């Protein structure tokens, strides 16, 4: 006996799954190479970082907030990892990972404090820290570039290593996904995030420690972004101050495509991860389909829109069916009001 929300939610994610499958089959038809194990491996690898960020972002968006600074945090963390490894040969990788995660978490504290305690709308606060952190990154890097050659191959191999044929990076993402996904669905604190996003004022009256929860969410998201930075360093090897610039929109897009509504209270980490998978698969597919490079942006955007629209139509369908069935009387404007941003 599951609630309508979950039912809707499941359907939402089913929509994305459907779209992804269609994409793979379609591309596979014209180029079977796309369905090869090898290519799946690459797609998983490409998804792992954006996916990780999308999972974190989902938590934030569910509370009716958003964190645009993740791209900058990832960039800073990646460069930090690079410098640590390049300048202190023999520093254990674990230490570097922890350092970067902590770095991310600290910036998360800044975001969280601004949003939860200074009560700055998240978009403004994190757009601000997006600039600030990138500034710090530039200042820190000052035109320096860390190259694959400067880093221990033991670390770089993280980017390609496999366990039982599955690359490590996606595995890490999966672990985080499992943890976050489960927590959101099954912990009281997880449910309270939905409550906050669904009706912040009511959350206060219900005795939910809103500020504390928000702070936690931003810190977690920051930490995840920090981790993503390390993975980035391991995967791409060439690191400078511009790493991950502009990725924030992709991340948000992934979450939204994955059925996490900007108006809060709806969505799941799983959906966000699926959204990320769909988006990266799209760009990989385009590269494979010998699409003229210049047309790729256009098609990318088109498919993104298609995904959102499909998801929306499915949601509407279900809503209509529900209305007929159980005398559900949500107002005509209701769902749209809910969809309105913020």
């Amino acid at each position: 006996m599951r609630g309508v929300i979950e039912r809707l939610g499941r359907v939402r994610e089913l929509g994305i799954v459907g779209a992804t499958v269609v994409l793979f089959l379609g591309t596979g038809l014209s180029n079977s190479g796309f369905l090869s194990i090898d290519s799946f491996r690459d797609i998983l690898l490409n998804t792992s970082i954006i996916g990780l960020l999308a999972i974190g972002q989902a938590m934030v968006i569910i509370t009716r907030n958003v964190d645009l600074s993740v791209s900058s945090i990832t960039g800073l963390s990646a460069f930090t990892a690079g410098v640590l490894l390049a300048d202190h040969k023999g520093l254990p990788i674990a230490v570097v990972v922890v350092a970067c995660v902590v770095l991310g978490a600290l910036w998360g504290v800044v975001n969280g404090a601004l949003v939860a305690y200074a009560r700055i709308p998240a978009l403004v606060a994190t757009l601000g820290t997006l600039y600030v952190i990138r500034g710090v990154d530039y200042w820190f890097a000052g035109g320096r570039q860390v190259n694959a050659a400067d880093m221990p191959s033991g670390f770089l191999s993280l980017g390609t290593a496999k366990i039982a044929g599955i690359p490590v990076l996606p595995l890490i993402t999966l672990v985080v996904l499992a943890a976050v996904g489960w927590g959101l669905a099954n912990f009281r604190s997880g449910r309270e995030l939905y409550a906050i996003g669904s009706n912040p004022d009511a959350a206060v009256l219900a005795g939910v420690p809103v500020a504390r929860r928000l702070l936690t969410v931003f810190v977690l998201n920051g930490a995840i972004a920090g981790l993503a930075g390390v993975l980035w360093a391991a995967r791409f090897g060439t690191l400078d101050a511009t790493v991950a610039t502009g990725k924030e929109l992709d991340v948000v897009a992934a979450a939204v495509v994955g059925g996490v509504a900007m108006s809060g209270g709806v969505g799941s980490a799983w959906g966000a991860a699926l959204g990320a998978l769909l988006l990266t698969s799209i760009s990989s597919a385009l590269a494979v389909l010998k699409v003229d490079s210049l047309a790729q942006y256009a098609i990318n955007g088109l498919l993104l829109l298609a995904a959102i629209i499909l998801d929306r139509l499915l949601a509407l369908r279900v809503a209509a069916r529900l209305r007929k069935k159980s005398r559900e009387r949500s107002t005509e404007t209701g769902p749209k009001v809910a969809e309105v941003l913020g």
Partner: protein
Amino acid sequence: MSALKSRLLSWEGALLVLLIGSWLVAFATVEGFSGTSNVSFLLLDVSEIALMAIPLTLVVITGEIDLSIASTLGLTSAIIGKLWNAGLTIESIFVIALCVGAVCGLVNGLLVTRLGLPSLAVTIGTLALYRGLAYVTLGDKAVADFPAVYTGWATGSVGPIPKPILLAAVLAVIAGVILHATPYGRSVFALGYNEEAAYFAGIRVKRIKLGLFVASGVFASLAAIVYTLRYSSARADNGTGLELAVVAAVLLGGVSFFGGRGTLPGVLTGVLVFGVLRNALILADVSNEVLNFVTGLLLISSVLAPNLATLVRNRRSRTLTPPLMEGNPS
């Protein structure tokens, strides 16, 4: 409301003080700032941002957002170049350009109002789409040889005031009156705060939003014309990334991202503050990372300042106003 109004006023006031303050400081300390030619450089540099910020202000007040404006600019610019090469008259090209913008806006608007999709998601999508179409249109080429009369206009100025800025100013005044004094403007605010109640009051919610998205597109293409002419360069990648700058200006101007709250004078002041600081810092050879830094801090303080004020007030009256009132949609 009174609290809200004073909050707004206080914020606009603060911005104005900030603007004048930074202007005076720069005037006194940064050599080369005071020159009239510099003033017009300064203003010219924000002309596109100013143009695009005008409709975006209204869009954000209705609780929506349009991130595709910079891409619309790029697409329009690319089409201008294409048509110019094809030998059309520049005047007719301008007309077509505006139509292109209108169509781009219409697409956004229809997706948001008819399908009820979240505008953030939609316009992230069209951000990619329009930029892509720009590349499809003009590819890797750049078109440069535009008639001197028009490029001259775009770079020319009346006294120290560049002509594009004059254009923006006129449009801003019109938009300001519409937003703050007409039934249309009232409706915009009402539905920004509570879409459902507005709908119950017979306000044509969808039509208004659609109109605003179209306006946003048209202004973006207007900005594209200015941009293309003043750099006399039509390229597919023109204005890449400008959207965040515009959004930043709007938010700095005191418009609530959650809709309902905001004023045009505030936004325009915000745009100018950005312009002055950027120009002054560059003149003072402050390195680019500091520019990023300052932009960010400014943005944060734009809301931090008034919020701290209210927080302090609440401490005094010891009332627990539920936090995140900001957070309430509709």
